[in-house]
């Protein structure tokens, strides 16, 4: 680190300290001019395309807006009041929570065992890994539409398979019954998330130093004990990070729902991001859209802060 920070300063007064911080900033800018210069292009991009829209959304949340989203009058909570009165909102909140946490939990349940097996050597392991990554590489919008075709009530492959297996002879309307449709969009979200999570778990497993297992073998530990006492604790960190990222991604997930059901039937497969998109671009009530966007953002930030706190305290404990 910089030498300047170590300069001994006998308990500086408030003003002096502020001045010191300022001087340090200037010195840092001077010493690392090249580094800061290198950051300028990306900073400008983030400012224009990430920070500005964010600020604009937040401003819009507290303003009256017209049909193309312009702010007419600033400084009102009317948008939030309208949202609170919206009879669909309780359902949307419930569905968002269920979707985000449900898909992540299910993805973990399928990905972790998958990673454990793929971590072993067996013939075809390389082929298995390539096939595993296929859903991750393909355009999500397009694979979700293909699932929509598979779930088709009359011509779809799924109903046909069920007929063949003699489970039912009915044509189940997978995407037209609310609960089934919700299960289907969750399924496709899980389907699309499994590759990334499995590959991250796999990487975590491979980074466990092999010698810790040798010690356990010598003590005559059973493979079950070995798994619980060695593998699981070593994976904890990877596990926490992956689940945090996945919950954030699931909260942001738009494509699967939009291409499969567009929230139908009756907003029963909508989550907050698809619903706020409709509020803005279909109902043209931009203000409410901004307000819901702002609320979603705040929830995500709070969730991330709490989660990283927990992660830190677990690590130090």
């Amino acid at each position, binding site marked *: 680190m910089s030498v300047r920070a170590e300069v001994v300063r006998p308990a500086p007064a408030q003003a002096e300290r502020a001045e010191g911080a300022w001087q340090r900033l200037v010195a840092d800018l001077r010493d690392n001019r090249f580094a800061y210069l290198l950051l300028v*292009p990306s900073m400008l991009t983030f400012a224009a395309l990430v920070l500005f829209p964010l600020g604009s959304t937040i401003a819009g949340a507290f303003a009256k807006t017209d049909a193309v*989203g312009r702010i007419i009058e600033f400084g009102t909570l009317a948008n939030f009041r309208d949202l609170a009165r919206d009879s669909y909102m309780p359902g949307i909140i419930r569905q968002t929570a269920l979707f985000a946490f449900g898909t992540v939990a299910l993805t973990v349940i399928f990905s972790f065992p998958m990673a454990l097996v793929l971590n072993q050597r*067996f013939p075809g392991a390389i082929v298995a890994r390539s096939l595993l990554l296929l859903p*991750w590489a393909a355009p999500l*919008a397009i694979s979700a539409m293909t699932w929509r075709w598979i779930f088709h009530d009359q*011509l779809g492959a799924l109903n046909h398979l069920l007929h063949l297996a003699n489970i039912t002879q009915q044509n189940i309307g997978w995407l037209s019954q609310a609960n089934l449709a919700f299960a289907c969009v969750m399924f496709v979200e899980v389907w699309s998330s499994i590759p990334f999570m499995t*590959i991250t778990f796999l990487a975590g497993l491979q*980074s466990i130093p092999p010698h810790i297992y040798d010690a356990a073998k010598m003590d005559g530990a059973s493979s079950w004990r070995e798994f619980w006492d060695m593998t699981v604790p070593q994976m904890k960190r990877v596990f926490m990070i992956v689940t945090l990222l996945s919950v954030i991604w699931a909260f942001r997930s738009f494509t699967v729902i*939009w291409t499969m059901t567009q929230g139908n039937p009756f907003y029963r497969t909508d989550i907050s991001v698809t619903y706020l998109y409709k509020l803005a671009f279909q109902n043209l009530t931009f203000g409410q859209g901004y307000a819901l966007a702002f609320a979603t953002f705040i929830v995500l930030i709070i969730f991330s802060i709490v989660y990283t706190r927990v992660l830190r305290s677990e690590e130090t404990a």
Partner: protein
Amino acid sequence: MTRRISWLKWLSIIFFVIPMLLILVFPFIIMVSTSFKTLQEVGDIPPTLIPKEPTLQNYSEVWQIIPLAYHFRNSFLLGAGEMLLVLLLGIPAAYALCRFRFGGRQPYMIFLLITQMFPAVVVVLGIFRVVAAYGLVDNLAVVAFVAAAFNLAFCIWLLTGYFSAIPPEVEEAAMMDGNSRLGAMIRMTLPLSWPGLIAVAIFAFMDGWNEFLFSLTFIRTDEYLPLTVGLFRFITRFQIQWQHLMTGSLLATIVVVILFMMVQDKLTRGLVAISEK
């Protein structure tokens, strides 16, 4: 004991891994199967897995039914545009993060993390007003720029990983030979890390190719739509012709899957490096 383990292993492969893989590739099997069917066979009840009279008709028809050539061009432009932007903006930033220990380093890293935290929809809403007001609808460059900004943080992390694998000594040697810092970076570090750069480039290209939400919102005219939204409009607007949709889908998927297979190893290793930090 070893025998018991391997027995368990085979059991789990047969009853867990194989069924899972089947489900993971199932949509792609259906895509292939449907794309070779005639209109009549698509409507057959019960549906068939292997077409009775396989036909290539869809592969010639689909280009006339939807402006597929335009969609391909636009997807390519989005991919290439995002790739260029990510490299241009990301390489300097990643290099600075990797080689310098400056005061703003930590805040910048935290900022990158925060950009990952909000839904793209928030940005779409916030930026729509500007796009509409300045007549930037139907502009692929806008979509590429927004998509690149959204993918940038992730790519900077990836690039930082690749750059830190290059020892700083090679740059110092080049600077002794009279190169500037920038010259040393361009002549030594970039060429040495090219496999990583290619992985990031292809990752960015794929992200642009697969982009959906920004194109859905900021592009109105069919002629400027990329494949993802173009095909989506096709199923919402018309009586759905599944065999055509699946043919288009398959063509759109093949391109990225081939690219992905080329850099799969590099990319997953880069992701591993991120998750370990």
